[in-house]
């Protein structure tokens, strides 16, 4: 018997609820767009199955659906990344950008774009390699005994991240006009070029990461109680920390290579979900997966609906919503 008070009960209930939310968000994102709502076309597609054709159908299944799914993958990854970093640093206000991992991935990806490489394996590979290198640098700077202290990791990350930002601007100033627009747009978070192949390839990388993070969710609970306490409770703290950093680095760099730098999702979603359902990571991991996905799908929908002409990067919307929320949470947490 699963009760809503037990941990498994909470996991199941939260997952079902937010999975429903994600399904609803995806439905809205597919039916809604610059050409108005498309309930008619959906009905037609449902009635005729894959036989349904016409420009409406193309827009729905080949443009809107992959874009919405990519947004869901991005949102899930960033939220989970934020959750992991908050646990690692024992700081509820951390996000994946803070340790420079996404900054490193961005440097790698920009180099890839500048050389005109394909997204697979070139840009993605370079992004992952660069984020691993940056992570290695951060770990080295914070190394030895003191890795167990949250401040040293945070400080090293902030420094390295600032350095990455400078490198990104430097690279942009070097690049030719023809690539500049592409790079700038990608940097702000670009989902407009999504296709189903891309969504599938990304899913192959992300799915094992998501499963591994769920397996490590109780370890994250222990980490938030302090490294020494976690160790005394039987956790191999250093191994778990390195594993978490590796997994996060892999999934963040893969999505950064696809979607650019989308800020504040990793901060806002874990924090919001923690306020709603408590700090247990065994519940928060699935919650961030589906809730974060739903949030970004809705952000992207907003970006599409607001900018009737041209495209607005989703990063603009997440930052416009995220920055005020961040400031609000920061002010509240001081009291």
């Amino acid at each position, binding site marked *: 018997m699963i009760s809503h008070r037990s*941990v*498994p009960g909470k996991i199941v209930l939260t997952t079902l609820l937010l999975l429903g939310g994600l399904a609803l968000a995806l439905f809205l994102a597919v039916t809604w767009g610059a050409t108005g709502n498309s309930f008619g076309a959906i009905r037609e597609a449902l009635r005729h199955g894959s036989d349904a054709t016409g420009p409406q159908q193309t827009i729905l299944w080949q443009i809107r659906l992959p874009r919405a799914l990519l947004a869901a993958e991005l949102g899930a990854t960033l939220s989970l990344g934020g959750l992991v970093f908050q646990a690692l640093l*024992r*700081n*509820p206000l951390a996000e994946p950008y803070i340790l420079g991992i996404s900054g490193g991935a961005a440097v790698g990806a920009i180099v890839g774009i500048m050389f005109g490489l394909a997204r697979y394996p070139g840009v993605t590979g370079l992004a992952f390699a660069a984020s691993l290198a940056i992570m290695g640098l951060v770990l080295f700077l914070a190394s030895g*005994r003191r890795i167990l202290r949250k401040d040293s990791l945070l400080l090293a990350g902030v420094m390295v991240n600032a350095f990455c930002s400078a490198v990104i601007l430097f690279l942009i100033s070097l690049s030719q006009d023809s690539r500049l627009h592409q790079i700038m747009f990608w940097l702000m978070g670009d989902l407009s070029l999504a296709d189903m192949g891309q969504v599938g390839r990304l899913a192959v990388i992300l799915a094992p990461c998501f499963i591994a993070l769920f*397996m*490590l*969710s*109780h*370890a994250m*609970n*222990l980490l*938030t*109680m*302090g490294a*020494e*306490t976690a*160790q*005394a*409770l*039987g*956790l*191999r703290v250093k191994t778990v920390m390195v594993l978490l950093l590796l997994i996060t680095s892999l999934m963040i760099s893969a999505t950064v290579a696809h979607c650019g730098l989308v800020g504040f999702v990793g901060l806002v979603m874990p924090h919001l979900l*923690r306020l709603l359902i*408590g*700090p*247990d990571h*065994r519940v928060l991991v699935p919650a961030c997966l589906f809730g974060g996905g739903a949030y970004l799908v809705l952000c992207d929908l907003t970006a599409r609906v607001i900018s009737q002409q041209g495209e607005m990067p989703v990063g603009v919307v997440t930052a416009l919503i995220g920055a005020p929320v961040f400031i609000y949470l920061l002010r509240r947490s001081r009291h």
Partner: protein
Amino acid sequence: MRAFDIQDVSYAYRTQIILGELSFQIAKGEFFIVIGPNGAGKTTLLKLLAGIGKPTSGSIAVLGKPIETYRRKSLARRIALVPQLSDADFPFTVREIVQAGRTPHLGILGLPSEKDALLADQSMEFTGIDHLPDRHLSQLSGGERQRVFLARAICQEPDIILLDEPTAALDLAHQVRIMDLMEQLKKKRDMTVVMVSHDINLSALYADRMLLMAQGKTVAVGPPEAIVEKTSIKAAYGCDVLVDQSPFGTIPRLTPVPGKYLP
């Protein structure tokens, strides 16, 4: 078989020597208290006993086996650690924190069975926090918080419990309550209690044996009456004290001499 067998243990951080060739034993079921001035290396010693960090040289045996032969999880079934009081960054409830004590007995997701939940409830009852299960740590007083961490350690069902200044910053009643709880654990559950403390008089009232440390070295080890006496205290702390007997008879009582510390 002894709870701990410490042989020539030294610990250095970079070039700084924190512990120098400590050797002593702690018997099973003993109430053992480590005292000494700030920076004597007490906390470092306690962490080494908990398996957090390795000695630079020397050996530590836990229940007859070298500490490094234990897997982290099986060591956690033997030894529980109550660290110094710290703030909670994440809003776990009291029940969640206490249940985390079951971790070394559970699978990777740490999902508690009914028996584990019952053990957590009993531990909360034992330390007198069973009326607070759904509160957050930030809503509790220092004394209540300390009893939450004690309950987590007890819930771990260890043979040995290590505590780092558990009575610091607590009022008199809470200090005695914590010490009484430890004595009960020792007497009723046959646990070995190893504690770091700054309160010499309180320690003398409860300890079977004490270790007096200064600058990473042993000054004296033995029963309270051998430790709490003028020359050892002067050697460790560098200050003059008077020692007489507590109203309980043979237990020594220390009184500092005011007005002798400034030139």
